[in-house]
């Protein structure tokens, strides 16, 4: 069985702080990590490999050359092969253009039975790339997967909902996007780290995946454009209730109800 796992290297946004005086981000010491949901996707693939040694896992990432570090970590966790898709032409891609690039890379890589990705990345939080890769590969998708089991030529998954889950059967090949219930991601193995550094990670440019002339990649090929960006306002014009009378508390609760907060 051949599995492709898509991962993204992201800055650990939980560690990013804001300098309250200047309103700018303080990035010193903020590490780059494998996107947390993508780690669950890796773990899901590795658990399938634990059960069946014939499972072959290829990890594909798109990003700047330094994203190679994330791929090394995935190899050290036990994946078999890694590919980095990196090219200035793909810079500034939105989710549509990104899925264009990733789906082309998956096709170029060859046959596969299952594509796994994280539900969403913590630097963008869109949850769009997985489904859009599925659309471009013309594959069925299941998102928000927190449990999966192979069953012949199909996979049976738990698909989380706000108030429960759906049990879904889907034929392979398909695209699944993973969330935390899939199991705590393992640490890189001691021997794995050494082996990971012996493996070669090919860097594929747009030429390698047949998109050098594409009008559908990068900043130009992205349907969405950033019009402007700004720091969120820190100060708020607060409404003050000068006492803690029953009337004040009642008013506060009705304000919160108006805003659907309680």
């Amino acid at each position: 069985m051949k599995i492709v796992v898509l991962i993204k290297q992201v800055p650990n946004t939980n560690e990013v702080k804001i300098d309250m005086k200047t309103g700018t981000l303080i990035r010193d010491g903020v590490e780059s990590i494998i996107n947390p949901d993508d780690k669950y996707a890796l773990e899901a693939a590795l658990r399938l490999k634990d059960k069946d040694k014939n499972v072959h896992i290829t990890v594909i990432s798109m990003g700047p050359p330094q994203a190679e570090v994330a791929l090394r970590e995935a190899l050290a966790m036990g994946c078999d092969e890694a590919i980095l898709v990196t090219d200035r032409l793909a810079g500034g891609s939105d989710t549509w253009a990104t899925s264009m690039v990733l789906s082309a890379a998956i096709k170029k890589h060859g046959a596969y039975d299952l594509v796994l990705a994280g539900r969403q990345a913590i630097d963008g939080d869109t949850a769009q790339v997985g489904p859009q890769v599925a659309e471009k590969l013309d594959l069925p998708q299941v998102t928000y997967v927190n449990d999966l089991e192979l069953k012949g030529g199909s996979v049976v998954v738990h698909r989380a909902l706000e108030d429960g889950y759906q049990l879904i059967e889907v034929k392979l090949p398909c695209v699944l996007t993973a969330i935390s219930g899939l199991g705590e991601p393992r640490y890189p193995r001691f021997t794995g780290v050494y082996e990971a550094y012996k493996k070669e990670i090919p860097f594929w440019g747009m030429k390698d995946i047949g998109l050098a002339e594409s009008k559908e990649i990068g900043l130009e090929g992205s349907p969405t454009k950033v019009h402007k960006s700004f720091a969120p306002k820190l100060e708020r014009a607060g409404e003050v209730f000068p006492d803690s009378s029953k009337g004040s508390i009642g008013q506060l609760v009705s304000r919160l109800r108006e805003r659907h907060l309680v």
Partner: protein
Amino acid sequence: MSVRIIDEKCKGCKLCLPSCPFDAIVMQGKLAVLTDACTHCGACVSSCKFGAIVADAAPEKVVDLSGHKDVWVFCEQRGGVLQQTSAELLGEGRKLADDLGQKLCAVLIGDNVANLTDALSAAGADTVYLTENTLLKTYTTDAYTKVFVDLAKKYQPNIILIGATYIGRDLGPRVAARLKTGLTADCTDLKIHETERNLLQTRPAFGGNLMATIITPDHRPQMATVRPGVMRKLDTPKTAAADVVKFDADLTQDMIRTNVLDVVKSVKEKVDLTSAEVIVSGGRGVGSAEGFKILHDLADALDGVVGSSRAAVDAGYIPYAHQVGQTGRTVRPRLYIACGISGAIQHLAGMQSAECIVAINKNADAPIFKIADYCIVGDLHKVVPMLIEELKN
């Protein structure tokens, strides 16, 4: 927008480096250079005192978009029950449609759901596109995408809004990809550009540390998802009845590649700080470990979790796992209630992007009040029990 640095103007002062959320500006010798990590967000432009960083507008393209009209809202139902986002998005869509002078249309897909059209009409819809089919009883990506895309191709909407529920976030990207258009996730503000008439879609990026306004200039429809509870439904129901347009689904069983075997309802689990929608947080003012009991009660009443300031952790009132702030967790709940927290910068840095902040503090000059939406000057030991009581009413 495309961002570049004019080498001749760059003085090598490094002021721009911290402005980049993506760490994409590096120094090469005495010049600042953009790396591949640049997303052209433009956050650095204003940081340069020498005008060396410029954002070029995208080249004008001649694309005829005039054939696309109306604002559509995907009105999600589950088991014949409308999700709350439907009315909320119709409320927001009403404003956009009126601003554009176009119609507001509800898209209702399911099996035996025609009885919901009145509610959609009252919530603001001028037209309801109704598709009913036994194959649409339970949501599946393949069936709903097919119907939605067929509808959009036939009627050519200008804007499509979808609730960012677990289902909306499955459907939206698939529909956008098939229609070859853009989609902006989790918008917190939507407006029509005064002159260009594009949809301005504002959303938090980078873990809420940055806000970005996104446009879809050359593609239609313009698609956006919005989280539940962010927009407001109409204050007064619309009285005029909506036109109901029936649309037959061109669907067969073999087009649906997933098989929903079962739908299981479960009791919501308590979630951790970073994904909690409501956080009740306590500081030194709580006074003791026992004092946190009422904060837990309030959190339970709101289906939320308990956080704390570093001062409360250092004093031994509560374990570190609850700590919010620069040395604890960064959180972005919908509602943050700060009880007896003075508001040290290190704490504010971890919670300032909460959608709504309520602060309860004895000291009227406490810094926490500067960033709060609602400020109660009083003793938390008195206020919190009253708040729990009031919430029960």
